[in-house]
């Protein structure tokens, strides 16, 4: 049943030709249980794409967390100056408000990216209830991407 669904969906965009189909095709041809898991050496196209997102997010995250405090150590003068309007010392604001907010935005960004990645590879995580609509979205997106 489910197999058929995936099948149809993966085939539909294929007629349009394009990246999405190639990825979905690659996904079907991948033997995930036969491919090594090593964070430094991704072995499947899916994991390569996934890790690109992971490392990008990670790099931004490192800067957002330890960047401000390190700058404060290096250049205490400018970093502790008072911000206009809000009145915070800059370093205080970047740490107390900036760091948690960056993590939240990054988390949202990552989850969106992951959903998009699943879509690109024709993977459907939907529960029974929203599975059909999920498939529709995938098909439409595939078309509009072209």
């Amino acid at each position, binding site marked *: 049943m489910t197999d058929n669904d995936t099948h149809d969906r993966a085939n539909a965009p294929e007629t349009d030709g394009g990246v999405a189909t190639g990825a979905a095709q690659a996904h079907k041809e991948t*033997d995930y249980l036969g491919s090594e898991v090593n964070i430094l050496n991704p072995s499947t196209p899916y994991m390569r794409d996934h890790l690109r997102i992971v490392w990008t997010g990670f790099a931004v995250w490192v800067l957002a967390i330890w960047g401000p405090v390190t700058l404060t150590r290096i250049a205490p003068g400018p970093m502790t100056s008072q911000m206009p309007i809000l009145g915070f010392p800059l370093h205080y604001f970047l740490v107390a408000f900036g760091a*948690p907010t960056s993590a939240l935005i990054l988390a949202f960004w990552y989850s969106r990216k992951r959903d998009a990645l699943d879509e690109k590879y024709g993977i459907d995580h939907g529960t029974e209830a929203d599975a059909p609509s999920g498939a529709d979205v995938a098909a439409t997106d595939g078309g509009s991407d072209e």
Partner: protein
Amino acid sequence: MTGSSLLLQSDLLPEALDISFKIGPAILVIGMLGLFLTIGFIFRVADTDDMWVAGRSIGNVENGMAIGANWMSAASYLGMAASIALAGFYGLVFVVGWTTGYFILLIFLAAQLRRFGKYTAPDFVGDRFNSDTARAIAAVTTFLIGFVYAIGQAKGMALVGLYIFGDYGGLIPGLDGYQVMVVAMMVVTVGYLTLSGMLGATKNQAVQYVILILAFVVGLFVVGWTNGYSTVLPQLEYGMLISELGSEFSEPFASSSYYLWVATTFSLIVGTCGLPHVLVRFYTVESERTARWSTVWGLFFICILYWSAPAFAAFGTDLYSQNVGATYGDPGMSSAASEVIVVLAAQLSGLPDWFVGIVAAGGIAAAIATVAGLFIAGSSAISHDIYTNIINEDATQRQQILVGRLSIVALGALTTLAALNPASSIAALVGYAFSLAGSVLFPMFFLGMWWENANRQGALAGMTTGLTLWSIPMINQIVPTYIGSLDAPLSAGLAQWMPAIGSALITLPVVFAVTIVVSMATDEPSLETKRIVRQCHSPEPMGQQETAEDVVADGGEEMATDGGHTVDDAATEE
């Protein structure tokens, strides 16, 4: 005896806090506890699946709220504002460390854990590394984390309880008012936990989240408004106040070095990703996509409080300076007073008792929700991982649940004893548990999930190294405070470079290196284990009740069918 308890009295009763029995707040708190017990009773369980992972039925927002309530303990609700008020810029390590770690958890572990799909954190370690010894070390670590972490919670609950119920020093012979309150609060918490298990706890945590966040945010708005500090967005408006609070509040590296700042945040972040009661939240959700999105929701719910806490600290500090005495300098605000600064701020604003009671009750809800998560994780480690998997493999569900409940009672008793005379501030106590989780469990989860060649010998060597290294600064700094004749720290140099609260900055790389080197020097793990790891990373959806092990067990055929699938495709193309 009398001398020491008198000393305790002066140490642990916060000055300026109005300690007396108050009827309104008392009804509020008793009503709240009654509600928790009722929910726990309605959703009580007699089934291990429900007891440990809530039937894998929890959705996005509900799990997000549970993540939030589970997470935000007395350390977030009370301790963080306390640290920001007293330690200034250094106090912000808790704001950063206790939020941003969720991103690492999300990108590296959440979905993979859901796919692995067992019951407890030690389950992962035991099954991934095929070792009951590794399972036992992880279980003992989990128990230890629950214990260290819960001491801070008991302290927070007791301090707030003093405001609401008053001073019953002497009611239990030899115990002062604070200590009587520790005992009372722990009895209630343990009572409801033994009844309800994880399902009740998850339902309860969603309710507890709502209570604690409303109490905190409404408290902040009202305090800001009535004192003229802020109007609609106190989370940003307190910036104007900072320049008036004294350089101690905002000056960078005034009370700590840059190194300590980085070490502490690092430790808190990797600790977040290794805490069993946090990790287990990803076993309770319906799918891996839910595991991801509920993390985003959880982080959002957490941020609401973490954006607000520094504002509360700023208001509290200013109110304290105006009404009680100088916050900084000698004598300054005592650490006991700072621990209840959130409640103090409401009280010093001249707000009615019942309103201050709401703020105080939120602190109790926060502490109970987290103790629930911790004790469930700790007791499942004992009952599921040690008793059922190692001691008595034929244990019936009845026996397992009995052992689970007994270990909750044991944890409760131990925590109560240690909390009678706590060694550090709430936030610091909790911080030690994070160093432990980051030193022992996080490396096992990270390497176990992301490097299929990590093996049993590597894990055993790594975890032993982690435990040993973690205990060094603890012995250096914390143990002496419990021994009268010794001064802490034993070695100042060690305390500077390997502080108990930030020790994972040193231990984590060492544990990683040890695990990798030993794994490479010994045989690779079996193909079956590798296939389980690969299944955790496969994007192919899995059934709600399936674990990676299940899929791999009948995997040979599965893969064959998939192969057929491709052929099928080719056929259609023609």
